[in-house]
Structure formats: C-alpha cells, structure tokens
C-alpha cells in the first residue's frame, strides 16, 4: 500500500484553488489476487501478469456494494477494477481524504504545449491515487485511481482522400442539404441544443479544429466510459449534424445496448430543442412489446413538451420508432457527382402496418447506395469497431481507409437523421416558437422532390415519383428554403396548437426552452397577415423568391 503523503507535490504550474468538477470519475481497485497492489507493482503490468491484478468475484461484489451504499454511481465492474463516479465531497467523506485540482504541463491536440487540470488527493505520493487506509474500504480496496484528462494524438483532423465518389464533411453534406446558403444569412444553429442518443462521442481533432460545441457526454443507464466511443457510430453521425448546423450545442447521450429507452429519457431530461436518434428495431407489424410502448410514450412525451424528435427510417428495416407518428422519419436520397438525385436503395420506404396511414419516411437526408452505403467520410474514435469494420476492402465493400486512422466512410439513414436534426435546428433558430409538428411540416413542404430510383427492396422497392411518395417521402431536405419559410412564420401569425400537455403528469419537468409555448419574448412581433405569409411561402417553395432580404 502506498504511504500517505507527508508533503504536497508541486509542479511547474503550481497549485491553487482551482474549481473541482462536479462529478469525478475513478477506478477503484479491489485487493488483487496476486497479493501485490497494482499501485505497488514495480514492473510493467502487461498481459503476462495482468491476471494477478484481478480480484476475487466475491470481493468485487462486496466492494461494489459498499461503494454503491456509500453513494457512488457504480458504472462498470471489471475483473480488476470498478468504475465509479461521484462528487468531490463524497470521495472526501468515504476515503477520509482531500481532493484538489492541480495544473500540470501537457501536450494537447496539434502539439499545443500548455497545462492540463488534474485531480489529486493528499493521500499518497503516486499522482492521482487515493488510499482507503483508515476507512472501512481498506478491507476491500487497495486504492482508487482518479481519472485523468486524455489528449488525442492518433488521427488527423483532415479526412483521408479517396478517389471513389463520396461526400466529405462539412462541405459536401452542407451543400447537398442546401445548408450553406442558410449559413450565409447567419442561421447556423446558434442557441439551439441538439441531443444525440447514440454510442457516445469522442472529441476527435476534426471537431476540436473546427471549434464545434459539445457538452460533456451524459451516460445513459448501464453505460460507462464517457470519454470514449467504442463503436464510433455516435461520433461519426455527429459530424453530419455539425455539417448542417455548425453552431448548435451537441448534447451527447451515450446509451448502453441494454437500455435505449433509459438513454432516450436521459436526453429528454436535458430539455433540448431537438433529439436525434440513428437506431431502431425492425417492426413490420404489431403488436408492440411493453418496451416498444414505453419508448413510444417517451417519444410522445418529448414531442408534447415541444422537443422535435428525429429517428432514422431504417436500412431495409421497418424501423421503430422511425415509423412513430410523432417523429420526423429520416429516409435516404443519393446525390451523384452530377448532382442528380435518386432514392437510395439502402434506405427504407414503407406504409406502417402499426400506425394507420403513417408513411415512412417523411423526407430524406443524404444516404449512399447498396451494398454498404459507404458514402460519407466521417471522423470516429481511432481503432473503434466501425473504423476496423469498414476498413480493408475496396469500395464499395469497404472504405479503403486504415483500421486505426479515425476515419471511416459510411452513411445509411443513420446519417440522414442528424442531417435532418441539423436542418430542424436551423429552423428553430429562425423561428423558436415553432412546434415540432410545424418544424416537420416546414421541412417536408420545402424538400426537393425526388423522382428517380427506388427505396430498399427489403421494404418493397417503392419508386420515387413526382410528388410525395413512399420511397423518399417529400424528397431531399432543403435547409435554406426551410429557414426562409420559418423566418416568414415568425413575421406572421404563428398558428397556435392545442394546449401543451406536460411531459407526463408530475414527472420529468422540462425547462421552458424547448416548449412550443416558450416563444422568445424578444422574437419579432407579427408584421404580415396570414394571407401574405401563405403567398410568400408558396413563392419560396416554388423557387420564385430567394429570401435573402428576410430579417
């Protein structure tokens, strides 16, 4: 066991009364079966000796139980350690220690030599180690290692160039969704919060370099390790969101694969304006399960509270909740190098057998074609599942990137959902008072009609035709037109909806930021009549007005 410190460690950067994070993560190590603490090991810990630092199952269970009873969140239990989280006061009380923040020299992304803030205790000479000595935890734990800041060194902020036709973020995706022109008039998603419920979010140099805004990852039930995205899906899809709405605040919610509903509910509790989800399950017909109906109720509650909810329509799936009546159902359109558009045969299009007259999708984002829709080059956590899984084959079966370079080429309706969420964010910035139903209606009415191609053969291979259809819904999103119509709505009389029911009576109180009744009091007062708004909207949709002069 490491000895208690007798003197404070000092650094070049010094110590001081720096603020301590509200939530501190750590790895608590129960006593090792080999009899030597991992914190006392003088030699390198590698695979040949790792098992000697494992702990007995009973001891792990007892330690986890004690930690939980003390008030810690137990996030994950592994053979060698227990991942915990809690506030500073809890650590200080439980382990009879004092925690403080210390600045130490570090090298951050892009070789920036600066200082990082590390949490440390007064207990031991080993940086970041808390000793349980003298507390009831001494019987079960050999030490508690406080999590440290990590800095990314593996990937480039630049996507690897590849010769096959694909889209790059942010430029090509923004252009394909006609978002550039919205950005040029100052509508970039600023002030809009978008929650993404997915596999996590990794702070890739691509995001850092472009200065995108992301809040710390919120863990859904059963999820762990907020700094990593082991799959890569959430990290990649967030680049689609930022491409369309570069100034939104991303609220990443990391879901475990054992409770997506709990993660969705955690996103609702953040009171965002928009929630985007690029996942679902295949439900060709009813009846729905208890879990499905709980998710349906959660989606309904979010929308009733004024949150616009976007779900992917599916990649040959009869996707649920992508077919729920309250969501914006995101399908796929393929844009070729000559800018021609056709329905993606990778994306679903169907009439729901569960919800009468529900057509899927509502409208589309940019999605690739069969066999794998390798279409948009996206950043992710180097060496994660998707980085590895897409590598190694020639396009279109693979993406021709390295398995550990932090870039992979993929799409699916997973990409369409955050693109539409980005467009919804632009619309909300342009007119905050719009309800989710109005946001959806504007996105649909302004979409570009797609008249060629067929959707996934797994959902019937429906043809795209002139006007709304069951391959692409109303067509490909046109963010600029949607923003213009939204601006008009804020200049005219906004149609009022029925009174907004609570999220659920007495539960999950929402802040007023997302609700349709929460119109910004500073928003422009109506200056146009309803007839004038209708006439101007029609002109915008028909392409007869640019909208550049709208405030």
């Amino acid at each position, binding site marked *: 066991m490491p000895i208690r410190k007798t003197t404070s460690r000092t650094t070049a950067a010094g110590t001081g009364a720096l603020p301590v994070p509200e939530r501190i993560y750590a790895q608590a190590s129960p006593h090792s079966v080999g009899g030597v603490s991992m914190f006392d090991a003088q030699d390198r810990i590698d695979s040949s000796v790792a098992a000697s630092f494992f702990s007995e199952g009973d001891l792990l269970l007892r330690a986890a139980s004690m930690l939980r009873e003390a008030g810690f*969140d137990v*996030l994950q239990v592994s053979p060698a350690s227990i991942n915990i989280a809690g506030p500073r006061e809890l650590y200080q009380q439980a382990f009879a220690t004092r925690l403080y923040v210390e600045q130490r020299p570090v090298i951050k992304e892009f070789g920036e030599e600066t200082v990082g803030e590390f949490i440390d205790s007064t207990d031991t000479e080993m940086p970041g180690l808390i000793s349980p000595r003298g507390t009831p935890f001494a019987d079960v734990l050999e030490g508690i290692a406080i999590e440290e800041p990590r800095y990314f060194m593996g990937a480039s902020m630049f996507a690897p160039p590849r010769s096959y036709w694909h889209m790059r973020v942010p430029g090509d995706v923004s252009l394909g969704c006609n978002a550039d022109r919205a950005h040029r008039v100052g509508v970039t998603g600023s002030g809009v919060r978008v929650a993404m419920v997915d596999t996590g979010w990794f702070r890739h140099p691509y995001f850092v370099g472009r200065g995108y805004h992301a809040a710390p990852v919120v863990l*859904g039930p059963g999820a762990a390790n907020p700094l990593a995205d082991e799959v890569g899906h959430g990290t990649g899809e967030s680049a689609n969101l930022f491409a369309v709405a570069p100034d939104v605040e991303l609220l990443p919610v990391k879901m475990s694969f054992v409770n997506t*509903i*709990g993660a969705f509910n955690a996103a609702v509790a953040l009171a965002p304006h928009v929630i985007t989800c690029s996942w679902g399950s295949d439900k060709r017909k009813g009846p729905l*399960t208890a879990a499905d109906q709980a998710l349906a109720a*959660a989606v309904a509650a979010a929308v009733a509270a004024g949150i616009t909810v976007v779900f992917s329509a599916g990649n040959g799936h009869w996707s649920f909740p992508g077919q729920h009546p309250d969501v914006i159902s995101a399908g796929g359109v393929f844009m070729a190098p000559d800018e021609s558009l056709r329905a993606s045969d990778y994306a679903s299009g169907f009439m729901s057998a569960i*919800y009468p007259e529900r057509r899927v999708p509502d409208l589309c984002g940019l999605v690739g074609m069969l066999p794998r829709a390798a279409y948009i080059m996206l950043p992710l956590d180097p060496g994660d599942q998707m980085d590895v899984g897409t590598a190694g084959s020639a396009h279109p079966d693979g993406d021709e990137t390295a398995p550990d370079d932090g870039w992979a080429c993929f799409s*699916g309706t997973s990409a369409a959902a955050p693109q539409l969420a980005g467009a919804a964010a632009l619309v909300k910035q342009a007119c905050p008072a719009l309800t989710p139903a109005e946001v959806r209606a504007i996105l649909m009415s302004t979409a570009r009609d797609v008249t060629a191609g067929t959707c996934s053969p797994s959902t019937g291979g429906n043809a795209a035709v002139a006007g709304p259809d069951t391959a692409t819904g109303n067509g490909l999103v046109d963010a600029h037109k949607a923003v213009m119509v939204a601006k008009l709505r804020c200049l005219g009389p906004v149609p009022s909806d029925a009174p907004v029911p609570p999220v659920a*009576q007495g539960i999950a109180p929402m802040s007023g930021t997302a609700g349709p009744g929460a119109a910004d009091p500073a928003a422009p007062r109506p200056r146009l009549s309803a007839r004038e708004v209708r006439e101007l909207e029609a002109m915008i949709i028909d392409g007869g007005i640019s909208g550049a002069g709208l405030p």
Partner: protein
Amino acid sequence: MGLEDEEVISAQVVLRSAGGKAPDGESVVTAATLADFAPAPEAVARAVEGFRESGFQVGSAVGNSFSITAPAGTFRRVFGAPVHRTERGGLAGPDGETLRLDDLPGEISRLLAAVTFVPPPDLLA
C-alpha cells in the same frame, strides 16, 4: 448465458395510468393520446422511491416509464429470478424480456404495468 451477480444491468419500469390503464400491443401512444396513459405523479414518486430503497439507480421518468439500474444480483434478489443474456445480446428473465412482479411488494406492483428489459437496437449506418 447467466450473468455474474456484479454485472451492472438496466431495465425499464412501465407504470399504469392514473386510471389504471396500460397500453397494450395495439394501442397508439402518441402526443395526442399520451394523457390516456400517463401515470399519476404520486404513483411515479412512490414507485421511484420503492426501487431506490431496493438498491436501484433510478433514471428520469418520461412518458410512462423510468429506468432502473443495478447489479444483476440485485435484480435477482428483488424479482426473485435470475437474469440471463439472450443470443442477440439482450437480457431476459425466465419468462422473457418482461420480469414477473410477484415478488415485489403489493403497494409497488399494483402501480406497474411491467418491468421489461429493452432489446438491443440496430444501429442504422
């Protein structure tokens, strides 16, 4: 495949509506019909408290449900049955995704429509 007692797992608690109604497999639960299925606030509070007291971490209540998270051993103790992993990587009890409520205190179980594990989703990339 059985789970180690210390493995942290999660399930969703679905509450009955204030009128005792719960959605069946054919119900259309949308923003327009949600009020028909919304639980009473005091029922939510009582159920949350009951699961907290039994050692679960309780998530945000939204719609008609909230999550409970705890080691598998806690689930086994409270629900009186072991939990296993399914072939698809999800979780199930002896009767499938939905757990029996028989071992819960009556004052809690009467508030609930179901306690269910959530099947793993398909990522749509």
